[in-house]
């Protein structure tokens, strides 16, 4: 029986069916050795949403399964849930609007992941051994090298039918450096769409430098000072906070402090939600409800401009959906289980418009401050936008020069106060994943008068 017939048999008129097929190949390292070769790791997930109506009320039920043979049960469960779940808010499935193109797949990963992971691993180890041979010894204690191929199919009862194939590459590496009894490490974790973006020769030199530097690290003193955050930290600072308060849903629920045309940041800050940025980590022609993804200006020169809408809150607030109905990935989420996550409003790729200064110029202008390359976990409170996070790898800056590597101590503050006190944005953007947020496109940002805590 076809899927359409299964819905008909269950007496379901309004529905969508989201199917995600994922294949992962991976090598994990222990030191310079291979600990495990994983693959193929294959999963499939079907998620059914059924819409019921009773007068002015609508109910949406969702159920998932991992076998096509269970789809009939899944449909019946979703139908039952939708009848228990009748609410005053409106909903209807979107019809198929035309999507714009964006690049989301790496042809190398599509061609052959298992061999590619092995080749990459060989190259990584070769580069690491070469680096280790020169200067202070840097060794990997462990690593993860992983490819994902994801095939998504989405169809609904109003004729929408869309599909996409996308790829991810994940690299996690713990680089240890030792001298006598002193130990230090740099522990980066990065997603990209393509394997070339994280090629060993591109990423290792800086990571090794950071590992070596941390051996001489000290803790900062407690003081307010200038703080420059790297793009990864900006991702974790801004996506959970601006991304949360910009949601139409939060406007509807009165949980945002953003109002249209309010000045919310300094005039040097422009932030867009760019769902079509080539190889952006949440780029896609369409969102997880089938609406086309696009580009929405959230903050323009410090002024809050537009909310981001999924289908539900667009309908309930008389707005148009902006392609932000997503099965949102936190940085810790298992991509392979994405189908089980309910659709809700979420940013795609928040993109911070670059400034005019180079990073070097921004550093040279600092009288006393720090540049943070990595926090242990920058995880701000989405509502209050406060945070306090331990420094893992940073540099002390005095009179425009690096003077000391830092580890330990904390940077803390309130994000929505900090974005009013930006004194510089660098002129180059990077596609980044963070430890809290999955995607951002950002330069380095310099903030003034930020609390640093230490001994």
């Amino acid at each position, binding site marked *: 029986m076809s899927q359409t017939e299964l819905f008909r048999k269950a007496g379901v008129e309004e529905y969508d069916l989201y199917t995600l097929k994922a294949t992962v190949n991976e090598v994990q390292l222990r030191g310079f050795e291979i600990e495990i*070769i994983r693959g193929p790791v294959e999963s499939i997930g079907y998620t059914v949403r059924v819409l019921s109506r009773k007068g002015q009320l609508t109910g949406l039920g969702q159920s998932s399964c991992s076998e096509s043979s269970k789809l009939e049960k899944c449909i019946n469960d979703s139908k039952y849930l939708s009848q228990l779940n009748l609410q005053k808010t409106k909903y209807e499935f979107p019809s198929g609007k035309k999507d714009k193109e964006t690049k989301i797949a790496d042809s190398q990963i599509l061609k052959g992941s298992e061999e590619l992971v092995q080749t990459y691993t060989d190259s990584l180890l070769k580069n690491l051994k070469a680096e280790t041979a020169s200067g202070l010894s840097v060794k990997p204690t462990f690593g993860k090298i992983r490819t994902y191929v994801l095939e998504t199919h989405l169809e609904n009862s109003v004729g929408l039918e869309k599909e996409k194939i996308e790829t991810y590459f994940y690299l996690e590496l713990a680089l240890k450096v030792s001298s006598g009894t002193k130990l230090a490490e740099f522990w980066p974790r990065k997603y990209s769409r393509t394997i070339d973006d994280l090629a060993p020769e591109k990423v290792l030199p800086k990571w090794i430098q950071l590992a070596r530097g941390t051996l001489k690290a000290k803790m900062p003193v407690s003081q307010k000072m200038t703080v420059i955050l790297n793009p990864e930290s900006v991702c974790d600072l801004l996506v959970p906070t601006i991304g949360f308060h910009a949601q139409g849903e939060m406007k509807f629920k009165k949980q945002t402090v953003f109002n249209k045309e309010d000045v919310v940041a300094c005039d040097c800050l422009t932030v867009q939600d760019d769902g079509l940025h080539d190889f952006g980590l949440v780029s896609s022609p369409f969102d997880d409800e089938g609406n086309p993804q696009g580009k929405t200006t959230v903050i323009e020169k410090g002024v809050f401009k537009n909310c981001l809408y999924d289908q539900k809150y667009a309908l309930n607030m008389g707005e148009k959906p902006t392609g932000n109905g997503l099965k949102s990935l936190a940085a810790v989420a298992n991509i392979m289980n994405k189908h089980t996550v309910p659709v809700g409003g979420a940013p795609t790729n928040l993109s911070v418009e670059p400034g005019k200064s180079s990073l070097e110029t921004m550093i040279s202008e600092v009288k006393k401050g720090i540049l943070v390359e990595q926090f242990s976990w920058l995880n701000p409170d989405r509502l209050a936008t406060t945070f306090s996070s331990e420094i893992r790898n940073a540099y002390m800056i005095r009179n425009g020069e690096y003077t000391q590597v830092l580890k330990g101590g904390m940077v803390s503050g309130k994000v929505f106060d900090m974005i009013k006190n930006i004194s510089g944005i660098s002129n180059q953007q990077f596609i980044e994943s963070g430890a809290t947020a999955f995607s951002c496109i950002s330069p380095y940002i310099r903030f003034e008068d930020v609390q640093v805590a230490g001994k």
Partner: protein
Amino acid sequence: MHASTKLDNVFDLLEYAGNEMEGKVEYWDALFDSQSSCSISKDNVDERIVLPELTGIQLRSFRNGVWRSASTYKMDESKLKEMAKRLVKSRQKAEREIKLNYLNPLRLDVTMPLKKNPDDVSLESKIEDVRSFHDAALNLDKRIINVQTRYLDSRIERIFMNSEGSSMRQVVTRTRLLMFPIARENNKIRMDYVSLGGAKGYEVVDETDFDAVAKKTVDSSIELLNAKTPPSGEFPVVVDSHMAGIIAHESFGHGLEADQVVRKRSYLAGLIGKQVASELTTIIDSSKVPGGHGSYVFDDEGIPAKENILVKNGILERFLTDRFCASVLQCENTASSRVESYLTKHFVRMSNTYFAAGNMTLEELLEPIKKGVMLVHSNFGMEDPLGGGIQCTSTKGYMIEHGKIGAPLTEISLSGNVLEVLKSIDGVGKKLEFGLGTCGKGSEDLVPVGDGGPYLRIQRAIVSGG
């Protein structure tokens, strides 16, 4: 065939896959994983009911010191044969010879007991209870602009077979009930939360006094509206049981996971038998805590759950191990190998990690502190297994002034060196309490865990807050 239709078929399938590898590798195991859950979330606008499910098989082989694994959702012999064929083909070889310790085969079939199985409660009743819990918080204070409530039950069935002849099955059900009241006054928005549950059944809901829990959680969110930003710097610190648990787990426990020791990535390597904490301190990891969120019957390598004393009176006693690490380090297997699902790798993980109780009251702990900070209700933490650093963040806190609890503070992070902090514990409370959460190793591979302890007094630690 269908995964969950007939158990015999699953055992047959795993045995079939094992037979395909038998004699061709040094060790193999096969894990069937079936997870189903019911999630109901409600706030003032939305009500969301989701029934996710995940089923599949992971095969693993070990040869020449290297593991191989493959996973599939397809429950058929031809797929398993194809996977097994790949797993026996690996040409990789470790630099040194590593032999896995042989363990006696076990046969077990245990469903963790529950007072009330969530499967026996109708969906309508569950929804009704979530609505009642939500409504209990609704009109307590006009500054509460939204109340998020969530119910979650999950049933994990795992069947394990290996080349030693073990054949085991466990079913573990976990139930949780959560509330997040959101308080707003002008542009200030704050939220505290409550999280109840564990490896328990629907009694988690039945035994909760909705009105009392809602009132306490709402009051805490409201209190945060007027909380001040914490001071930054070094202070005497008192932490509650939630924060004690997160220190035991995140800051200390991750360094005790023996895979970090084997990787030469643990600040605790070489410290067995040495003083790592004050002599008032005993830290335990136990997968046998009744109802503990991290409890199980056996780990994902077929080792029955254990209570492991990690630190006794300040002396480091043992690392947490899996089959590989126990073999390499020639130490006891602590039943600590866990997977998130059939899709993820086995790692050494904690279960329920906690400080043992001491003999002091909270008043006695606070009494000598002239000016200090109290951290209450954990929010999150992050490990630093090589550096031994701390990042533990509370939801709220209080100033301690002249031995008394003073003004409320917003979220506070604790930083510094974990061994310095543990050695400076000079007071341990008498009441042990557990919290529950989800642990990622680094930033992925999420497993349910419990953690806890009594109130602890730390002579000096670095704190800061946003």
